[in-house]
């Protein structure tokens, strides 16, 4: 469903943060960096569940509507504005992953450039 080989970095404003099972969702208004000059869209970002996220340090209220955040996602294969979270950088600079099952990012949360590990075969 999600393409972990072609990860995308998005930066924008949170329009909704839904802390619930079986998945936490972030809705984010951001332009698509793969389409320069395109209008911002509202992205649906799937995260792990509250239990997994709590166990790696997230809190139910650490993301709020209107927060400026940056994220790395594995985009939804249909091309619609959605994806699976790999990493998030909060307004206060803290960076969180999305738990073991989601896997790590292969591009930088800072500038979207490939991380060294991604160069490995």
């Amino acid at each position: 469903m999600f393409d972990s080989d072609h990860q995308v970095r998005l930066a924008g404003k949170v329009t909704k943060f839904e802390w619930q099972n079986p998945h936490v969702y972030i809705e984010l208004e951001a332009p698509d960096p793969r389409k320069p000059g395109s209008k911002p869209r509202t992205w649906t970002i799937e995260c792990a569940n509250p239990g997994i996220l709590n166990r790696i340090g997230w809190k139910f209220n650490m993301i709020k509507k209107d927060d400026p955040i940056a994220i790395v996602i594995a985009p939804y294969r249909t091309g619609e504005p959605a994806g699976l979270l790999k990493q998030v950088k909060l307004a206060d600079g803290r960076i969180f992953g999305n738990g073991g099952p989601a896997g790590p990012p292969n591009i930088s949360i800072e500038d979207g450039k490939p991380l060294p590990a991604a160069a490995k075969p």
Partner: protein
Amino acid sequence: MRPAAGWALVLGAALLAPACAPKTETVAATAAPTFDPKDFSGTWDRYPQPLEAGRDPSTLKIPAPDAIPPPPLKPDFKAAWEAEQKVIAAANAAGEPIATGYTHCLPDGMPAMMMAMFPMEVLQTPRQVTFIQEAYNQVRRVYLNDTLPAVEDAEPGFWGHAVGKWEGNDFVTETVGIKENVKFRNTPHSPAMRIHERMRMIDADHFENEVTVEDPEYLTGPWSWKWVYQRRPNYKMYEYVCEDNREYADPKTGKARLRIDHD
């Protein structure tokens, strides 16, 4: 609570020891029992944790259990099961997984809930041992020294009917009455399926569960594997209500899709 029986033995041994006994004997006696082998209560993770799976197995303190073997299905059912496994593997390899029961917010049921996908809590009371799996708020009650219904009389459910007894330090359970649509590893089964478990403490922080599934209609013989759990001290279980899954099954392809509320 845990070491009550063990410490009573230690205390007894200490009281019986002669006053002139060398100090070394006292130290050895008090250091021996560190856990009660009949107490599984507490919170547990599956072992080894997935992130540890890539580690050199020789570095694990407790050996990792072997991979679960394929079900020994009778020839009439084996080809269909193998074909389905190939379809699932190909869909996963293409990054387009097929929707599962989880997509429909369905819990594991038995025996899958005992894999401890998320933390598992065990509560022991005089009449029952209760297993709580954080994922999907699953609760399974194993009644002690009780009688199972005959399989033809067992109302089917996700967790069925389970009884347990102690054989030495082994906690031995038997479970019947699993709904036919509750499948472990996509394996078909009949109402006559029986799940046997033998649980024992390995040390203070690990216990193992030898699982054997029998089904005279579908299997050529017993299907056995082992799960191991490691203690997760002081963990408080989270609630889990499958409230709003934006993933859904595509009605045409059966593949998992994502509902997008805004664009």
